[in-house]
């Protein structure tokens, strides 16, 4: 092997680092033979590729002996400089099949062109995916027959990976839009134009850019507030966030929590706004419902306190026996609390007459046989149920203390029926409380709270007549009132 150092002014002239390497290479040991005997075509193409800034490699002869320029050496990475003068199938063993085809086609006079061809190359001792634009064309020898293949190799890996990232990102974004129930929208920098709105059924979609989006989605009376929030976000270059009403599909009005972030260029100028609007209609409805419930609860608490005050005032009014009055007061509070239970059980909607009587009267009667409760069940409004419950409590405690249940044998019958005085007249409810078998009854000298509650209070409550009859055989209470009042649940 003879090492012949060729001067810089010999062929190939110039050509940077590769020019020097080629001049210094021992070509006699390859199938190309000594450099000064190279055919004119080989010398010409070698000179040309060495002067090109584009990565070019020449594969000469059946073996594809490799000659390339500085730009290609950068592409070749760690494979350079061993590649120079090597056979292409051996120089790139990992893509030997690919290059075998290149050689066969090229030497047969054909051309090959690949766009973003993906190959796995071992340029740095490990496999990496590389994308390239590859253009192969035959090089003719001095006699005009294909003697080699010239390849322009432009690596496009960075572009391909960047494009793939964009594509993945767009796919992820599309998946996000599909996965979320939010409406996703885009606005131009000053929000005068909505470029698109994509909603999963909560809002009507805007496919084409729209300058009427404000009127399309926002109620006229809310527009000033929304505008104000938008202007503040633009002015301060911060995310827009606002909860407002919105026109939904099929004309319904809902609530949305809308958030948009500004996308800015390198100079900090807003390019567009990207937003998501979630449907918070249900949450708003629940909040409103809760507010109403709290108001109502507050009212009922106050009302119950006022009722407690009323019961206390009337129980202790002009009383001499404080101990007895205390017991009565406690019993009345318990009756009030139980009546509330009854109503809570019916969710404050309605209570049954039978339920009211069973709860208010039954606990006072020691023997079940001494109480009859009989009649067709009727639904009462909560207020009427409460009033009737308190009235029945008064009758029951009175019966236990002075009436039919005070002795060994007396009994109480509570019966009721509904009827119409004339055919077309509204239905009425007739309730009778009748005691028998107790001590003889006489007209009381003074009417207490109980009788007043029953005669004055209950009659006003039920809008009918309520009479206490102090008959010698036993106390009776007769209630006669329109039924419609409580059936409607007013």
């Amino acid at each position, binding site marked *: 092997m003879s090492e012949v150092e060729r001067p810089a002014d010999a062929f190939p002239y110039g050509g940077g680092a590769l020019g020097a390497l080629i001049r210094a290479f021992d070509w006699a040991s390859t199938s190309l033979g000594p450099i000064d005997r190279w055919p004119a075509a080989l010398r010409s193409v070698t000179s040309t590729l060495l002067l090109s800034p584009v990565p070019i490699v020449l594969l000469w002869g059946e073996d594809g002996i490799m000659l390339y320029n500085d730009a290609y050496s950068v592409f070749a990475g760690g494979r350079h400089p061993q590649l120079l003068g090597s056979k292409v199938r051996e120089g790139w063993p990992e893509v030997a099949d690919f290059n075998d085809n290149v050689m066969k086609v090229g030497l047969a006079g054909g051309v090959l062109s690949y766009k973003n061809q993906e190959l796995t190359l071992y340029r740095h001792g490990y496999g990496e995916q590389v994308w390239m634009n590859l253009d192969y064309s035959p090089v003719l020898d001095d006699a005009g027959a294909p003697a080699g293949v010239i390849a322009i190799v432009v690596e496009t890996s960075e572009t391909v990976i960047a494009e793939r990232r964009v594509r993945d990102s767009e796919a992820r974004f599309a998946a996000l839009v599909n996965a979320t129930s939010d409406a996703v929208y885009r606005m131009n920098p000053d929000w005068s134009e909505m470029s698109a709105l994509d909603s999963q059924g909560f809002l009507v979609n805007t496919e084409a850019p729209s300058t009427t989006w404000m009127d399309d989605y926002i109620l006229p009376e809310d527009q000033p507030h929304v505008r104000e929030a938008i202007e503040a976000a633009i002015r301060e270059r911060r995310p827009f966030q606002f909860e407002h009403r919105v026109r939904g599909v099929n004309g319904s009005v809902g609530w949305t929590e809308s958030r948009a972030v500004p996308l800015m260029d390198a100079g900090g100028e807003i390019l567009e706004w990207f937003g998501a609007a979630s449907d918070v209609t249900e949450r708003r409805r629940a909040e409103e419902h809760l507010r109403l419930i709290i108001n109502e609860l507050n009212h009922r608490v106050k009302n119950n306190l006022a009722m407690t*005050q009323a019961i206390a005032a009337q129980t202790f009014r002009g009383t001499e026996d404080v101990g007895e009055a205390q017991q009565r007061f406690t019993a009345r509070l318990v009756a009030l609390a139980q009546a509330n239970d009854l109503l809570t059980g019916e969710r404050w909607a309605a209570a049954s007459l039978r339920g009211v009587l069973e709860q208010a009267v039954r606990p006072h009667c020691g023997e079940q046989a001494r109480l009859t409760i009989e009649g067709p069940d009727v639904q009462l409004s909560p207020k009427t149920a409460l009033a009737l419950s308190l009235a029945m409590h008064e009758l029951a405690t009175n019966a236990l203390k002075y009436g039919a249940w005070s002795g060994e044998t007396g009994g109480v019958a509570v019966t009721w029926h509904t009827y119409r005085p004339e055919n077309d007249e509204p239905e009425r409810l007739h309730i009778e409380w009748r005691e028998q078998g107790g001590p003889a009854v006489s007209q009381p000298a003074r009417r207490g709270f109980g009788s007043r509650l029953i005669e004055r209070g209950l009659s006003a409550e039920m809008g009918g007549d309520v009479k206490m009859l102090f008959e010698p055989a036993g106390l009776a209470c007769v209630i006669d009132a329109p039924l419609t009042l409580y059936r409607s649940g007013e």
Partner: protein
Amino acid sequence: MPLRILVVEDEMTIALLMEDMLTDMGHEVAGLAMRLPQALALAETVEADLAILDVNLDGRMSFPVADILRRRGVPFIFATGYGSAGIDAPYLDVKVIKKPFLTDDLAVAIRTVA
């Protein structure tokens, strides 16, 4: 000076308490209604110097009763567990007493109106 007073109150025990309070003050209860229909009818016919109106009558607002009383020139006050928050805009100038209230609260309210 004894006054004739209309009481509109849907809670039986509270209605009786108000009757007692008013009687103790020397006034006369000119009428008692516990539901909106009766209150509307009574407001048209009652001869009263003053009315005390519960705002919520078993779920229905008593404002139509207030309208009749205004038309007839009968002064009135509201008595409610909701406080001023439950009063509609046209009646915000009406005196409100919050339940539960004392006899003195009621007396003061009556004096400011009658």
